[in-house]
């Protein structure tokens, strides 16, 4: 079947089997390998993308769900539109060492950006609850939580300008 959607700001039309997962479509057909498949059972969160602005696990999402929707992947995450700057959340992860091997990072970032966009003044407890669906085997989460708090504050500050 043919589906049309907006992918990272660009109109996109693809021909897919209905039994295609969005994670597979992105990685194999569209060559966007920033979205990772970790557990493939919707527990680890390495595959999180934004569907119409909401965080979803692309390994548990069928391609037909994209039709008419807007999809944002890690490749589309950026600072000011059109700039080469990284998103404030990406900057915060670099600044506060919120990553080591980097495998979970795209999913962490997508979840974190959605979390911060939904609620401007996040507490540490809310960040930890919000990251429940994202597993990191390197960091022990401490620096990820610090990064998300800092990134959320930076997103807030940028909005106020």
């Amino acid at each position, binding site marked *: *079947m043919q589906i049309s959607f907006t992918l990272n700001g660009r109109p996109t039309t693809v021909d897919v*089997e*209905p*039994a295609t*997962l969005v994670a597979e479509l992105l990685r194999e057909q569209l060559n966007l390998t920033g979205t990772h498949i970790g557990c*493939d*059972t*919707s*527990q680890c*969160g390495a595959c*999180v993308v934004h*569907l119409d602005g*909401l*965080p*979803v*696990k692309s390994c*548990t*999402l*069928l391609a*037909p*769900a994209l039709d008419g929707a807007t999809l944002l992947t890690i490749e589309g995450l950026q600072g000011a539109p059109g700039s080469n700057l990284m998103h404030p959340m990406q900057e915060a992860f670099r600044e506060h060492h919120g990553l080591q091997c980097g495998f979970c990072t795209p999913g962490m970032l997508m*979840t974190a950006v*959605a*979390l911060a966009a939904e609620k401007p003044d996040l507490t540490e407890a809310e960040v930890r609850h*919000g990251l*429940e*669906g*994202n597993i990191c085997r390197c960091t022990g989460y401490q620096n990820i939580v610090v990064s998300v708090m800092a990134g959320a504050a930076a997103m807030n500050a940028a909005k106020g300008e």
Partner: protein
Amino acid sequence: MKPFAYHQPDQIPDAARLLTSIEDSKLVAGGMTLISTLKQRLASPVALVDLSKLGSLKGITDGGATITIGAMTPHAVVAASKLVQTKIPGLAALASMIGDPAVRSRGTIGGSVANNDPAADYPAGVLGLGATIVTSMREIAADKFFLGLFETALGPGEIITAIRFPVPLKAGYAKFKAPASRYALVGVFVAQVADGVRVAVTGAGPGVFRVPPMEAALSSNFDPSAIAAIKIDTDGLTSDIHAEADYRAHLVTVMAKRAVDAALS
């Protein structure tokens, strides 16, 4: 995943017709359980009937003494709803504890109730509040809806369109979750309604169930201390790699006390 045909009807009768006319077809709502089931090849339907284009199944409406939640309303919307937070805060809290944010973006109340997973959260809220399941054909009381392990009163071609919840005097939910899946190892929903108290337990057995001794005790004294000494029989409770039946039985009392605490706070 085996290949399947994909239908996206925009009218409920069309969806029901597809479901009955195509043998071995399945409904898909948010897909949070079904897609995993397909990936593991535990099911291989020839066709999926996607309910997402049925706009009339989305949204939350205030009926005064009731709140009606459309079957395709995602958990995140219920959790964030000011209406639900104000009138049945225990239900908004339950929705906010399901899975994780990404699961709550996609998973729906209708999908969860129709699937009747023995460890899902919503069945406890639906049974605990004595809600009514509204389908494409009729209305079913929660007490007659949940029939056991993944089994419900839904007939062939019958589609849940909404769940209607009576607004309780007080209600609360507490769960002890399995850490990886966030499913309820044991979850207890307690509701104080006009004619008494209802206590519904999920996760502990093969399906959601009520606890009459706790309901009686809480009806005369709505306080955690009233049920502290009530123990649940381990007969029929689940024993698996996550917990033995006696541990689950113990958790029922602990979670019920916490649910009453939550209802009172």
